[in-house]
């Protein structure tokens, strides 16, 4: 979220909601129950849209948002599941390719890329190296977060 606030005038952002990572009928995590984020894997688009809407409403999620179709075209094209980050440059080419989430999901790398191009945005009062976006189970900070 902080990255979005810092660079939204310089870069566009788009969150793409893909198939659930820890639905109740697959690999549900204890943290899902604790956080009351319990959904079965959507079997149709309306179910997927309903969960996406729950997410954006619950966290007042400000980033532009798109939902992958049930053919998982975006997910497949970007090998995105369960969570992943990319930057596409102005010419439509991949400028940054993040690692596979959750273990290699690193918003700090996105910040570094943006900072190298547009300059660093400092937050003296903020804790350093938070990465701004969640590695997992912290949706308000950026991504629809798979709780891996």
């Amino acid at each position, binding site marked *: 979220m902080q990255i979005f606030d810092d660079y939204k005038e310089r870069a566009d952002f788009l969150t793409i909601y893909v198939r659930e990572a820890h639905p109740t009928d697959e690999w549900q995590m204890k943290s899902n129950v604790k956080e009351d*984020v319990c959904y079965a894997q959507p079997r149709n688009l309306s179910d997927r849209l309903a969960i996406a809407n729950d997410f954006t409403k619950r966290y007042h999620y400000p980033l532009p948002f798109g*939902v992958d179709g049930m053919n998982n075209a975006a*997910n497949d094209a970007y090998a995105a599941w369960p*969570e992943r980050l990319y930057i596409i440059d102005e010419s439509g080419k991949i400028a940054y390719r993040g690692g596979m989430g959750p273990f290699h999901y690193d918003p700090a790398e996105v910040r570094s890329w943006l900072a190298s191009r547009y300059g660093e945005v400092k937050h003296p009062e903020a804790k350093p190296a938070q990465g701004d976006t969640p590695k997992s189970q912290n949706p308000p900070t950026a991504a*629809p977060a798979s709780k891996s």
Partner: protein
Amino acid sequence: MKKVLLWMGIGAGALLLIAFIALSVMAGSPRDAVYMVRYALPHMHRGNLKVGDAAPDAKLFALNGSDTFHVCERTSGKPLVLVFGSFT
């Protein structure tokens, strides 16, 4: 020969056990390790995209479910940060 096969079996079993313990530690518990293998690994892919490749396009749905747009429509003039994820 029988002894060699026996020791090979024991060795393979030990390796599997070590792998399972390591996966359990990584995933959080033996149950999570089993679920990771069953539900997560089949969907996790490194992908073939590289920096410099043309960004793939894909049709996306707006939250209202009736409007659609394409990823490529959002790439113009500025870099586009894509954030993939889900709720759970």
